[in-house]
């Protein structure tokens, strides 16, 4: 199997998806493709099933919160990997936090199951079609999504740590 260059991978993606690809760039040696969330399943399954691209392994998925970007506050990041040629690709899509929904990719990879649950737990991203979307690491009673930037890191109930001690 020949190793495709980033340009070749990108041109294949662009020829398969005339719409939906926002931009693409190389970041620290990894091709990064920004797409619209409407095509996430189609794009990922194309990348997985195309004989030459063959990104058959889902390395990782996670979300990022950018409160300052208007209408693009939430980002979903997928990392795919082709074991045979050692090629990796990063796929990103951004959507407003007011409507944090994206389709689940469990039909493509079962490993997405818990990772999507974790993303929901941390960021409140709702994965449409997920069979069991509930909190995974935090307590069920939690009423906010702790990884969003506006929430504090520290435990709010600690009374031995007042601001005066920390010069705040």
């Amino acid at each position, binding site marked *: 199997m020949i190793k495709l260059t980033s340009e070749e991978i990108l041109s294949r993606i662009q020829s398969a998806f005339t719409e939906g690809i926002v931009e693409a760039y190389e970041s620290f040696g990894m091709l990064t493709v920004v797409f619209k969330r409407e095509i996430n399943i189609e794009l990922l399954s194309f990348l997985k099933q195309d004989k030459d691209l063959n990104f058959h392994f889902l390395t990782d998925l996670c979300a990022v919160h950018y409160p300052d970007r208007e209408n693009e506050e939430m980002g979903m990041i997928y990392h795919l990997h082709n074991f045979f040629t050692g090629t990796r690709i990063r796929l990103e899509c951004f959507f407003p936090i007011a409507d944090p929904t994206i389709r689940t990719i469990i039909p493509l990879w079962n490993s997405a199951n818990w990772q999507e649950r974790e993303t929901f737990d941390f960021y409140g991203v709702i994965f449409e079609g997920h069979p069991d979307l509930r909190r995974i*690491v*935090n*307590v069920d009673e939690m009423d906010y999504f*702790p990884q969003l930037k506006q*929430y*504090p*890191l*520290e*435990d*709010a*109930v*600690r009374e031995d*740590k007042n601001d005066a001690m920390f010069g705040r």
Partner: protein
Amino acid sequence: MSEVKIVEAPDGIAGEGYFLTSFEKVVGMARSHSLWPLPFATSCCGIEFMATMASHYDLARFGSERMSFSPRQSDLLMVMGTIAKKMGPVLKHVYEQMAEPRWVLSVGACACSGGIFDTYSVLQGIDRIIPVDVYVPGCPPRPEQILEGIMKIQDLVRNEPLRRRNEPQYKQLLAGYGIE
């Protein structure tokens, strides 16, 4: 064969064929050398506990080689590692199941105070939910430190008055934690 060390007898009056001492001292001595620990190991400190009970440091030298994994049959609850808020009720439940007299050893910075994890999900010290007898600092503590913690517990056990667990102060302490 190497010399076998046995526990020294408590203070008392010895004579021909008899030995007088207080009951409390005998019970304390016996208890302190046959503590059955319940290892409640959650994270990193649990690995150091494994080192403590393995051959190199050998917890058995202190009469504590019999791990009791059932809370009903243990004397010493050793909490090792981070206790998240999700785990808190479980820990309390384990403590409640233990029969009196019971002691608690809090091993590691996380169990003592939350340690470096001053975060929304971590309980800031197990003494918020159960009473603790001895704290062992360190992240994680060295096995020597854990052993010293056990020896401190042994001191407490040896010197504990027999009636302590029936006193109103003790009842009050437990009530402060919401434990009946």
